[in-house]
């Protein structure tokens, strides 16, 4: 049972720390740093469901986040729904869309799927940039009045932060839950040898479509929260290709296929990125460093940081998975 997993309790403690640290002492700067880390962890751990567990590279993972932001903002500001309802609706809508896409493009195998995901990103971005109700390429703004139901903007920011931390914890628990389920075993089988898995009775197309759709849900919720917090959205920030790609770097860095690894890689890389982006001399080179890092990890340590820890302390596998 998942309750007996030590990692579950670690996740909850970490989430509690994330929530408490900035709240204690009203440290807004720390909160803004941590919310970025939380978003990185949400995106990476859900991406891990595809890349790490199922062995399918999704280059367009950011599509879920951006679409979630659009759908959520539309419900929250244009229709005036409560933030939580709007964010959850965004998650459901985007998941359903992903299921439809997934049933189509997941007939493609391996690299062809990876290419199709680049196409999904381009196509969705092209669609949104031309879609009148969502403001085409200028995007949408959050009306100031939308913060009123949450008790004013200042409180609303804290509420979005706590919700984001909850989504982060849920993402990690989801990864852990899938890993310890029969469904997860089916995914691992697909990763190792898809044809053998099919012969042994795993309905690969359905499994892949389900995990593709599941991996869309929490990023979409996170997107709705984040863009609500930022107060605006437009196609270029919603579907930032580079963020999608950096998600892959984070995952490989931490160790694909592991819950802890995806979180660790996301946290470390996000901090590194913030440092590089704010440093005047290095800001232009952050992509170069990310690329070099990815190349080194693939070449020298395909298991990532966690793979290295496993080799050092083999027994750690039982706790950090």
């Amino acid at each position, binding site marked *: 049972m998942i309750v007996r997993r030590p990692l579950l309790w670690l996740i909850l403690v970490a989430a509690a720390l994330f929530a408490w640290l900035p709240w204690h002492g009203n440290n807004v700067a720390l909160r803004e740093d941590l919310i970025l880390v939380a978003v990185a962890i949400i995106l990476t751990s859900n991406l891990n469901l595809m*890349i790490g567990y199922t*062995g399918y*590279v999704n280059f367009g993972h950011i599509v879920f986040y951006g679409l979630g932001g659009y759908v959520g903002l539309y419900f929250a500001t244009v229709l005036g729904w409560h933030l939580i309802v709007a964010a959850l609706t965004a998650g459901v809508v985007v998941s359903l869309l992903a299921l439809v896409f997934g049933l*189509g*493009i997941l*007939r*493609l*195998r*391996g*690299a*062809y799927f*990876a*290419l*199709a995901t*680049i*196409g*999904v990103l*381009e*196509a969705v*971005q*092209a*669609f949104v*940039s*031309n879609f009148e109700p969502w403001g085409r390429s200028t995007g949408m703004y959050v009306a100031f009045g939308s913060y009123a139901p949450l008790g004013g903007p200042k409180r609303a920011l804290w509420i979005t932060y706590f919700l984001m931390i909850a989504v982060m914890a849920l993402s990690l628990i989801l990864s852990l839950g899938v890993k310890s389920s029969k469904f997860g075993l089916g995914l691992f089988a697909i990763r190792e040898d*898809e*044809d053998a898995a099919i012969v042994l009775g795993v309905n690969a197309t359905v499994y892949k479509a389900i995990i593709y759709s599941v991996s869309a849900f929490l990023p979409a919720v996170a997107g709705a929260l984040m863009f609500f917090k930022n107060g605006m959205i437009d196609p270029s920030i919603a579907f930032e*290709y580079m963020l999608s*790609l950096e998600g*892959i*770097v984070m995952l*490989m860095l931490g160790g694909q296929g592991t819950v802890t690894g995806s979180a660790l890689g996301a946290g470390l890389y996000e901090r590194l990125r913030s440092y590089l982006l704010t440093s005047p001399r290095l800001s*232009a*080179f*952050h*992509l*170069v*460093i*990310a*690329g*070099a890092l*990815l*190349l080194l990890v*693939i*070449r020298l340590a*395909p298991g990532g940081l966690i793979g290295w820890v496993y080799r050092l302390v083999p027994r750690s596998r039982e706790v950090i998975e």
Partner: protein
Amino acid sequence: MIDGLLIGSVYGLAAMGLSLIWGVMDVINLTHGAMIALGMFGMYLLFGATAGNPYLLLIPAIAAGFLLGIVVYWLSVHWVIDRPQLMSLLSTFAVNMMVIGIGTAIWSTSPYNVNFSLPGITVGEYTFTGNHMAAAGSAVVIALMLELFLRRTRAGKAIRAVSDNRDAAELMGISSTRVLMIAFAIGIALAAASGGLVSTLFPFTILSGAGYQLKSFVVTILAGLGKPFGALVAGILLGLLEGAVSPFIAVSWIPLIEFGLFVVVLILFPRGIFGRASA
């Protein structure tokens, strides 16, 4: 329409590079877009330095692309060839990020252009711009030269042999590492050449390559893997299609159509796709 035909031959040239690498070594080269962008900027620099005819400057651009291809091959491709496809996707992709990162640092993401124009030809009420015709002509000439190289020369035959069956080729005494390296370098040189040609037609930024990379994928899938000359024909078809739909819809919808085409073709004509995966 005619413009579509002319531009299409440049798409075809870009796709030939991708198709060659994909077919010969089963590596999907995600540096392709970045290399096309480098071709554009290479042409910009060469033209700025010499003010010569860009279509003659293609020759040094291709040579530089070839050398760059050798560097990229040793940097990111050589050690992943026998590993799962996921690894080669990621490692070429890492190089892509580095190139885009360096490019952004040098040129930012603002648009550049190569300010050169050839006189056009007017037939009746239509005018064909000189640049479009020269670019299409260069693309076809390069494509023909590649086809001749693959069919007639010893190195070209070795490439085709390795593409058909690498183990058998090795047994016949062909050094597959060298052949793979050369094939990869040719692929990159073709990408650089197409980038150079595009730079004489449209303004470009360091990120422009991505759009052409998507087009190259569509074209490669349309043509079937490892058929460079087919890629030229499919590229022209794609150009014609774009030319045919552009009067009716906004340009920004085009990626949607291309992607739709990509998925539909893959699903309807999966021959050689699922077969290869389960072999």
